[in-house]
């Protein structure tokens, strides 16, 4: 009996170890791209190059990747991240071996400043000429020296038109007491403060401490109405009717529409965020030419249109829009109406003012 107890004790101590082994078994890309010889390669060359593509989870069409592999005679390894912060943390902590990465606009500017990106050779990416007008000359990289927009969209309000009969047109609807407990907000400090600043008639890139403080007060007054701050599952919350108003990105709202047709999307009249996930090549990439070729492929109008149909995010290729399914094209959650374009704003780096946002966000959470 005593022995048994010892055995059980030791299994108990083994548990944490088992945990760590399980955790550490997740694939890491640190072995980097190597020219691995592959037997039976149909290509004339004897070796197969591997391209490492680091992108958002659920952000690729496998058949499109396979088509590129076949056309270019290479292998593409896809690895995913779930937030810009996670992406940056991984790259900063020394993960190398990725070639093409898909950071969002504000993260592109951080990565440029940190010297993580390689300059693009635009002669190898002719599809850049097909960029939609609003995606050219972006504040963080006007010449596309480091980045090309890939998929883009807006932040707005997803709402259930069966519950909210008069279509809301203002952020103010998120402060209406009758929807208490039926509202979800993004768990993202800049976006949440952006909504408050916009309803105050201010830029969502405000740096003035007074404005940030006022926005915080506004958000504190809203907090009792908010069911949850989430950036991940508001599409499910909308689709299941747990919330009737969701502050969020268009794509997930469009997905909720597929499940619950009464869901609609609006870009409030006060204006909102425009965002773009951009294709960049890392400085540490050892396959830069192939990386540019891959970027050009993703921006091809046929490929782009199929990507949009699949992911419900608008493609940066202006000619792709015509090839997108009629229903997707007409969906404001995917393609914002032209009339909304001039009230959209990019989230810019606010420099040291970010400390004010950090603190105000923490204060909001602790109220």
């Amino acid at each position: 009996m005593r022995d048994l107890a010892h055995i059980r004790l030791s299994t108990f101590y083994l548990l944490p170890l088992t945990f760590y082994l399980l955790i550490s078994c997740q694939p890491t890309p640190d072995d980097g791209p190597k020219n691995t010889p592959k037997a039976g390669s149909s290509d004339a060359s004897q070796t197969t190059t591997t391209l490492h593509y680091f992108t958002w989870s659920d952000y690729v069409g496998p058949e499109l990747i396979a088509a590129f592999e076949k056309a270019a005679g290479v292998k593409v390894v896809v690895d995913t991240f779930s937030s810009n912060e996670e992406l940056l943390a991984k790259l900063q902590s020394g993960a190398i071996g990725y070639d093409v990465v898909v950071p969002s606009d504000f993260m592109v500017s951080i990565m440029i400043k940190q010297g993580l990106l390689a300059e693009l050779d635009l002669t190898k990416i002719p599809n850049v000429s097909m960029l939609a007008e609003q995606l050219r000359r972006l504040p963080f990289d006007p010449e596309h020296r480091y980045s090309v927009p890939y998929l883009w969209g807006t932040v707005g309000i997803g709402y259930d038109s069966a519950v909210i009969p008069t279509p809301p047109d203002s952020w103010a609807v998120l402060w209406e007491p009758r929807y208490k407990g039926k509202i979800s907000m993004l768990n993202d400090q800049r976006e949440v403060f952006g909504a408050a600043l916009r309803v105050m008639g201010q830029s969502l890139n405000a740096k003035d401490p007074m404005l940030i403080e006022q926005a915080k007060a506004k958000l504190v007054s809203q907090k009792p109405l908010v069911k949850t701050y989430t950036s991940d599952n508001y599409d499910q919350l909308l689709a299941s009717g747990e919330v009737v108003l969701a502050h969020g990105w268009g794509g997930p709202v469009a997905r909720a529409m597929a499940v619950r047709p009464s869901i609609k999307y609006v870009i409030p009249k006060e204006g909102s965020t425009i965002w773009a996930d951009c294709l960049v090549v890392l400085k540490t990439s050892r396959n830069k030419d192939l990386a540019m070729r891959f970027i050009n492929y993703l921006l091809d109008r046929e490929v782009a249109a199929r990507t949009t149909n699949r992911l419900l995010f608008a493609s940066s290729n202006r000619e792709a829009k015509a090839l997108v399914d009629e229903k997707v094209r007409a969906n404001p959650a995917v393609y914002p109406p032209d009339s909304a374009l001039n009230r959209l704003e990019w989230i810019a780096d606010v420099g040291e003012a970010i400390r004010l946002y950090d603190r105000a966000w923490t204060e909001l959470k602790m109220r």
Partner: protein
Amino acid sequence: MSPSDPSTTLSDHSPISRRPTWLLLPPLAWLGAFFFVPLLLVLAISFATRGTYGGVEWTFSFANYVTMLDPLYLKIYLRSLALAVATTALCLLLGFPLAYYIARAPARWQGIWLLLVIIPFWTNFLVRTYAWMFILRTEGLMNTLLMGMGLIEHPIEILYSDTAVLIGLVYGYLPFMVLPLYAAVERLDRSVVEAAWDLYAPAWAVFRRVIWPLTKPGVIAGCILVFIPSLGAFITPDLLGGARTMMVGNLIQHEYLVARDWPFGSAISFVLMGLVLLGMLVYLKVERARQGDETVSWAGGDRQ
């Protein structure tokens, strides 16, 4: 087999009694490389300052530790402490009877019960937390069942509250309480308990004066194993608490990832670790002093 360790009966010069020091090397190397060195790094970074674009600038300063005295951050600490204490207490309350039952069950059942306790570990913690969201939400399993049975008329809004966080934490860490408690009860000498009954001790006294003191090492181990991870939890408050409030774990995550203020994040982590360590040292000291007292009073023979 035999309760007495055979090596103690041999002379100190016997080769058998020589402790194989090399057995220590692998864990020492492991801890050194993967625990101690990173810990020193965190300590070093906690005295640095944040660069404009989120890098670490190596200018020595205590600023991060001073910032932490801000009532805002103290409030986060206190909140986490309260939740961790509540989690530990609930785990103990639920875990002790369970561990006692398992340890007293017939031997062939013990394995099955223990297996049932461990089985949740086979699934990723994140997935299990999402499962709890499906159980607790307004139109979730719990409300559907309760309303179906006519026990409640309106769904209970429990998801995205502190209660949900507490449920999630207790659920997540209960096995860490049960396993050491089981080991302690398993080793508890049954005849001592029987003697107490034979001497007509009331049930409470049997527990208070016999079972509790003898299983205390297991209780302490379990409490430590539950308290520390629940203090640093961040997935549960985000998912089950709806990210409406923060625990220290969320603050650290926020500082590291969103604010990209590694120095401040490091300082918070280090203070958290220091507080836990300090608490344990104080506890051990008090406990040792108390045990010393007891021995003295026993020896004095003035025990009622």
